[in-house]
């Protein structure tokens, strides 16, 4: 994910988190339905926090899947932005605003994803701090 350079520290954290999700999903696949992955705990925490009675789901339908899908979207917008940046450098760019708008889109969607991740982690930490 070299496309998210302007975000600085956030990008590497996001990258690590995506890797974590991938490994958790792989683990869930090998262990069958039973998985104690961090992502599933996160999903459970989210469900508990929102009062949802739905049983926690494993695999791509849970929070991990949602985040992974949105990360793919982010990736697509980032690469479009990067392509236009290259066009600007090589003089193939027809419209300046095509690049700047694509960059704004990529930035906004990245910020949304990071905000989503932060909120989920915040909820998770809140539950972990609970007194038993």
């Amino acid at each position: 994910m070299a496309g998210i350079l302007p975000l600085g520290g956030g990008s590497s954290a996001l990258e690590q988190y995506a890797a974590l999700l991938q490994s958790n999903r792989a683990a869930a696949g090998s262990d069958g339905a039973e998985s104690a992955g961090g992502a599933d705990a996160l999903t459970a925490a989210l469900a508990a926090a929102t009062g949802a009675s739905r049983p926690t789901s494993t695999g791509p339908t849970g929070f991990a899947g949602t985040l992974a899908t949105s990360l793919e979207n982010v990736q697509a917008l980032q690469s479009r932005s990067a392509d236009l940046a290259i066009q600007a450098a090589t003089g193939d760019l027809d419209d300046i605003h095509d690049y700047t708008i694509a960059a704004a889109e990529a930035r906004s969607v990245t910020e949304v994803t990071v905000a989503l991740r932060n909120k989920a982690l915040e909820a998770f930490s809140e539950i972990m701090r609970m007194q038993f």
Partner: protein
Amino acid sequence: MALFDAFRASGSGMTLARKWMDAVGDNIANINNVSRTDEDAFRQRFIVAQADDYDGGHTAGSAGGVKVAGVAFGSGEGRLVYDPTNVLADDKGYVKLPDIDMNSQMGQLIVSQRAYQANAAVVERARASYEAAINIGAK
């Protein structure tokens, strides 16, 4: 993507304004071209704008905005100017100049510039709005 419809629509408006400015630039660049009376004078260029019909946005459909339907050209008839010393003048001493009004071109230039700026302002406001939404509840 419905999330960025405002960007898409305004971006198309900016593209249109840019093409309009290109056409005005072309017209002004050629406004003093002299032609023989038996040939066409430079033809003024127009941009034909057409609304891109909005069809829901949430699907892969159009987000609205505007598109360039095509380019139209003015008359090549031009206007006859008496200039017997010109090398292109005919037997009676006339040459042909394009029938373009400089005042109209300058007016169009200002309007197209403002249109571009207005669309850029929409993009910026939309971006600021989304940012405000992201920051809800942030510490």
